[in-house]
């Protein structure tokens, strides 16, 4: 008895194997029709796949980088630009803020942690950022080699910077002015690499970190407009450190204008020549490497973390209304950004969904129109012992195979597309997109399979219900 059941199962197994083989052979027997179906499917699938992947990874990355930053304070301007520049380092900063003014804020009792940052030059397109050690802790960056910067002109490289620049501990390099490569090299101030970080999968990987003083030093020397006579005074102030002087307000303003001017370079590359000349003139004027009173100097932005969220509800408003600075809650801006991106990607997804629907329709047409020419084959199958449901199965398998092949090739195309998008994005924004499998793609697989089944259901039903005797009697 058990032997009989085994034999039965074996027979069914043989049947399924033969049906799948036939489905496959039928698909490659009429390649043009099949290629059309598969092409439509793969385009739809790959577009949706790429969109899903980019959106998912962008959100993930943006959320990861946002870690523990409750408030970003910087110069007035576009709030989104401030967040993009100060948190993600993919946009030019809005301007500079006065360090003394920022310090008042940083010492506010409601603030748990405040990280000031000053934008320096760039090295091979990677930003040199004047920062404090807290920044490394925020992103739990570990040292692969070396240690944190301990004095000016020492630099720590993010993992990716180290990887692409091939700089090692002890190497020196020069920053070039602005974000664009090879514009103006600050060749009097060499940074020395003292540390290289492990990969953090955050924005830190794409940064060259140094202390804020280094940034001041490089820029003060090259861009200061103070007459030489004032320099002695400045160095004296530097030694006295926290010393305050009303008369310095004027110079602060000067600095602000200078730094804003720098930032403009990034937008207007044409100024290159003019700037270079200016710099040369300045260099002739100044040869000292002193830093004046830090309070008179500018930083770019401050990243704040509150002690408790509720206690600091009024803080952004206070900053925005009472000071020269702008406070932005980055989470809000990022949500706004994704909302705007979402509108675009949703439209594209609908278009791609339409393509997939068309693909389903073409699968239906191909299977349905071939029913007539295949009626003798189907009748033959019945006459050698296949059951009606086997014919239903055969056509369903064909629809499924077409959908499956479309999905697989669509998946491959999406990875190829993503590779090129990622390469471009790495150049432009230091954004990298990986090709890992994510959950939404499983839904996409089910959608594709569903389309394949629905498209082949009607032809399969007709095949199942065919009148074998009548078909075979037709001469």
């Amino acid at each position: 008895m058990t032997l009989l059941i085994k034999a039965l199962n074996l027979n069914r197994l043989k049947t399924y194997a033969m049906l799948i083989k036939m489905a496959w052979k039928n698909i490659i027997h009429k390649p043009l029709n099949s290629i059309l179906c598969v092409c439509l499917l793969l385009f739809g699938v790959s577009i949706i796949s790429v969109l899903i992947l980019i959106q998912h990874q962008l959100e993930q990355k943006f959320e990861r980088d946002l870690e523990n930053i409750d408030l970003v304070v910087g110069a007035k301007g576009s709030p989104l630009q401030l967040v993009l520049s100060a948190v993600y380092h993919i946009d030019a900063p809005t301007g500079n803020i006065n360090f003394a003014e920022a310090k008042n804020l940083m010492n506010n009792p409601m603030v748990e942690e405040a990280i000031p940052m000053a934008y320096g030059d760039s090295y091979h397109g990677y930003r040199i950022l004047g920062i404090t050690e807290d920044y490394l802790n925020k992103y739990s960056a570990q040292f692969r080699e070396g240690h944190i910067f301990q004095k000016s002109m020492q630099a720590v490289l993010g993992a990716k910077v180290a990887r692409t620049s091939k700089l090692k501990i002890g190497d020196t390099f020069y920053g070039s002015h602005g974000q664009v490569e090879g514009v103006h090299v600050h060749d009097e101030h060499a940074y020395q690499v003292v540390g290289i970080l492990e990969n953090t999968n955050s924005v830190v990987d794409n940064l060259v970190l140094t202390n804020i003083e280094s940034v001041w030093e490089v820029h003060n020397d090259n861009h200061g407009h103070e007459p030489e006579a004032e320099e002695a005074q400045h160095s004296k102030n530097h030694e006295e450190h926290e010393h305050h002087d009303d008369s310095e307000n004027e110079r602060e303003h000067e600095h602000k204008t200078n730094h804003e001017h720098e930032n403009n370079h990034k937008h207007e590359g044409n100024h290159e020549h003019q700037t270079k000349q200016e710099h040369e003139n300045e260099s002739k004027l100044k040869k000292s490497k002193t830093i004046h009173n830090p309070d008179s100097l500018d930083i770019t932005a401050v990243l704040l973390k509150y002690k408790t969220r509720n206690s600091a509800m009024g803080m952004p408003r206070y900053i925005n209304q009472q000071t020269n600075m702008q406070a932005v809650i980055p989470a809000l801006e990022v949500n706004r950004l994704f909302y705007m991106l979402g509108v675009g990607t949703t439209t594209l997804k609908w278009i791609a969904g339409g393509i997939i629907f068309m693909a389903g329709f073409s699968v239906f047409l191909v299977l349905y129109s071939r029913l007539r020419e295949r009626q003798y084959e189907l009748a033959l199958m019945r006459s050698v012992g296949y059951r009606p449901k086997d014919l239903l199965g055969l056509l369903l398998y064909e629809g499924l195979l077409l959908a499956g092949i479309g999905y697989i090739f669509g998946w491959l195309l999406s990875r190829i597309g993503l590779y090129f998008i990622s390469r471009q994005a790495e150049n432009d924004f230091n954004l990298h997109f990986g090709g890992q499998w994510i959950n939404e793609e499983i839904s996409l697989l089910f959608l594709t399979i569903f389309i394949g089944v629905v498209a082949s259901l009607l032809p399969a039903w007709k095949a199942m219900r065919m009148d074998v005797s009548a078909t075979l009697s037709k001469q």
Partner: protein
Amino acid sequence: MLHITDLSHQYSNSPKIVFPDISAEKNSTLLIKGASGCGKTTLLHLLAGLISPLNGEIILNENKINELSASQKDRFRGEHIGIVFQQSYFIKSLSVLDNLLLSPYAGSSSKAIQIAKRLNIQEFLSQKPNQLSLGQQQRVSIARAVMNTPQLILADEPTSALDDKNCKDVLNLLKQEAQVNEATLVIVTHDQRLDDSVNQSIELKPIKDVCYAD
């Protein structure tokens, strides 16, 4: 052993067809002749279980084919009946060997090769069916019909498209395979060339709404 008693069939909106009682031994050949339209193919389809009779019995080796359910008929047909059609129907996308192995009840591929040798088509096994000549195609059809070691071989106009040489070959091969498989061979035809050398011959004739035997 094949027994047909009181068999009749009626298509909707058509006159009833009544068939003569027939008995045929195994290893014997039964020729059913008649002009077209008097129910030759209908009789064949009734024997194959592709349609159900209005009345009567079809018994093949103690199995009452007319009493089987639709799925039992499919299975019985797959296991015990081999059919050769007038036109050579094949799955075009499959090779000759895969066409031989098409049925879920077909034997192994070593059996297919053995049968192919008997029918002298072993050299075509890897080709597609439409690359063969009509005579070769009909031999492949015969080979496929006996892949399940049938008790009954049904042939519907197996020679009408063939020349004299191939006609004789095909008839001989059908008889040969019926012998090897100890099967009853039923050939439905209007081909006059098949008259000789069969054990039994029945002619169906239309009279008004009834076909009957001579």
